[in-house]
């Protein structure tokens, strides 16, 4: 209710500003921006609070520690089972009599279309422009470790999902935290689950929505010429409204089909650009490794590179965040662990492959300005970022990097960004809705309230400037990880039992291929 009141107040203020027109010194975008920054500042400060006496945010340590613990606890599961994961996705172990049910491939593709988005295009550019090329190294490492987190949460997502009499399913951290804790006799499950649901709703408004709208607008205005963000916001909000409220599935279906093609086109082009600049390969990897351990003059040094790399990797692949567990929980399988095996491919594809492509293109095309005398990066004091050739940041930097080789590519990138943004929004509207109905109960009215709020935040996201939006988006998504990972620590022995049982049956030949 409080949120609704605030929403109304914000709407009122926004409309008042709009009609005041030229008489008002502040533009509508600025008003939204200021209000937004002041409303969310405390939350952002809490999530990104550094360890006392350092500049290292505790949340980054939290995620990396968890991913490392899962990696060790499951004995480097992500490298041991990757061959089996691919066989599962290919359907080698799927019972032909289950045809017509959601396949492992479909669950993976849908979860991927929720994560492959602007994090891969804009987020990486942010990481590189603040943390330097060294951030790439830490990003890849975080991606590899994150595979273990994703494996743990998605296994639990399937194991503890709710199956309703009509055949529909609901799963995710809310359900495994409640049910798993009760099963193990650990108190506080319901409280943690509710807390997760609240953060998931905020995350769906933030990273899953406003950040997407914001960067889609940045890209559109970069190509079409500058115009107010709220216009993009209103158009986007309308299309999202038509899909999630109007139930026009065809738009979502078309997007779901084009997104994978776009991802292939994006990676293919990135690969061509890397090959065209192959002469820089020694230099580029030198920059990545040197930057990872020395910082090469960036603000915050090597630690700055590490923080940026880890942050953007977590934001992009969402490992440990819990969102993928919602998407994966609907797959039909007798063995929950198989979905865990499949899901660990997600951070690999998202971060180790796609994010790295973006990073390499930016580095290979030499978008970052280097001081020729010292070999260090030139800092732009005003923004706190490394100076870039066209003074770009976020998606603009990626666009400039691709555009420096293929002048037409920024236009393709606009389409890709808009589609990625849209598919991520649709996925996150679903995650947010699941959390919302977990809190407020299933029902048409409750769902409509959430969906309308979701559309409203599309407009806010497109109108606000990148800084406050990206801060809030990160904070909300990482807050989900705080709760989710506590749950994972308590429930990881359950997953361990499943892994051992499954792998021994696989070895003994009890689990057979159908092909």
């Amino acid at each position: 209710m409080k949120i609704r009141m605030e929403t109304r107040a914000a709407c009122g203020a926004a409309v008042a500003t709009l009609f005041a027109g030229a008489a008002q010194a502040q533009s509508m975008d600025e008003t939204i921006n200021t209000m937004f920054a002041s409303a969310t500042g405390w939350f952002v400060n809490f999530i990104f609070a550094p360890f006392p006496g350092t500049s290292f945010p505790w949340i980054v340590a939290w995620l990396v520690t968890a991913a490392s613990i899962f990696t060790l606890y499951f004995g480097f599961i992500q490298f041991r089972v990757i061959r089996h994961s691919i066989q599962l996705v290919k359907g080698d172990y799927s019972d032909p009599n289950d045809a017509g049910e959601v396949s492992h491939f479909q669950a993976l593709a849908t979860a991927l279309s929720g994560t492959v988005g602007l994090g891969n295009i804009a987020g990486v550019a942010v990481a590189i422009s603040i943390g330097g090329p060294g951030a790439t190294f830490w990003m890849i490492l975080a991606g590899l470790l994150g595979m273990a987190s994703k494996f743990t949460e998605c296994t639990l997502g399937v194991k503890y999902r709710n199956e309703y009499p009509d055949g529909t399913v609901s799963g995710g951290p809310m359900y495994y935290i409640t049910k798993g804790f009760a099963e193990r006799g650990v108190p506080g499950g319901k409280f943690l689950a509710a807390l997760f649901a609240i953060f998931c709703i905020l995350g769906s408004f933030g990273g899953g929505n406003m950040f997407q709208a914001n960067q889609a607008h940045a890209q559109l205005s970069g190509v079409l010429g500058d115009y107010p963000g709220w216009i993009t916001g209103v158009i986007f909000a309308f299309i999202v409204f038509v899909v999630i409220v109007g139930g026009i599935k065809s738009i979502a279906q078309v997007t779901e089909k084009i997104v994978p093609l776009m991802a292939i086109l994006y990676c293919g082009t990135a690969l061509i650009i890397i090959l065209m600049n192959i002469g820089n390969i020694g230099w580029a990897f030198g920059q990545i490794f040197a930057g990872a351990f020395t910082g090469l003059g960036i603000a915050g040094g090597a630690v700055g590179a590490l923080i940026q790399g880890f942050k953007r990797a977590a934001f992009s692949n969402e490992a440990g965040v819990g969102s993928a567990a919602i998407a994966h929980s609907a797959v039909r399988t007798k063995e929950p662990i198989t979905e865990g095996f499949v899901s660990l491919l997600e951070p690999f594809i998202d971060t180790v492959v796609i994010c790295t492509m973006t990073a390499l293109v930016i580095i290979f095309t030499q978008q970052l300005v280097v001081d020729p005398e010292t070999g260090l990066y030139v800092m732009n004091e005003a923004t706190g970022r490394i100076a870039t050739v066209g003074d770009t940041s976020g998606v603009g930097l990626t666009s400039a990097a691709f555009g420096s080789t293929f002048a037409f590519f920024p236009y393709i990138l606009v389409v890709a960004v808009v589609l990625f943004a849209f598919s991520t929004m649709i996925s996150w509207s679903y995650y947010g809705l699941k959390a919302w109905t977990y809190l407020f109960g299933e029902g048409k009215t409750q769902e409509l309230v959430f969906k309308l709020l979701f559309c409203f935040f599309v407009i806010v996201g497109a109108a606000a400037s990148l800084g406050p939006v990206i801060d809030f988006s990160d904070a909300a998504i990482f807050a989900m990880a705080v709760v989710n990972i506590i749950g994972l620590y308590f429930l990881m022995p359950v997953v361990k039992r499943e892994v051992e049982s499954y792998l021994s049956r696989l070895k003994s030949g009890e689990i057979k291929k159908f092909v």
Partner: protein
Amino acid sequence: MANIFVAAYDGSPSGRRAVDYAITQAKAAKASVVVAHVLEWSPYSFLTPQEIEERHKRRGQELSRAETAVIAPLMKDLAEGGVSVSSEIKYGHVAETICEIATQKGASQIFIGRTGQSTVVERLFGSVAGTLAQIAPVPCTIVP
């Protein structure tokens, strides 16, 4: 070994012609007929999160619709024909699934209808007959 024919049936008039022709042949050959109805499905298609959530429910609905609207009326029609008829409803790539059914049942022949008409669905069905002619593990009769 029992002589078994598989007849592909999609509910269309051309499918019906294939079934009828299979029945006639089965009578002469003292064979039994398996009517195969395949719902087109690829495990590699893309679904939205909402569709994924509802998939199991939808599958149940699709199967019961296929049973009541397509297969049951046909079986009722064929009940008095003097030929033993059973049915199979499966999901998958249509031509490949018909071949799988034929192999599983140990069938000696496959019957499938085709039309030269121009509606999109029937064109697709026509191409199924073409594919089947290429990949069928046993002799395949295409009924015009």
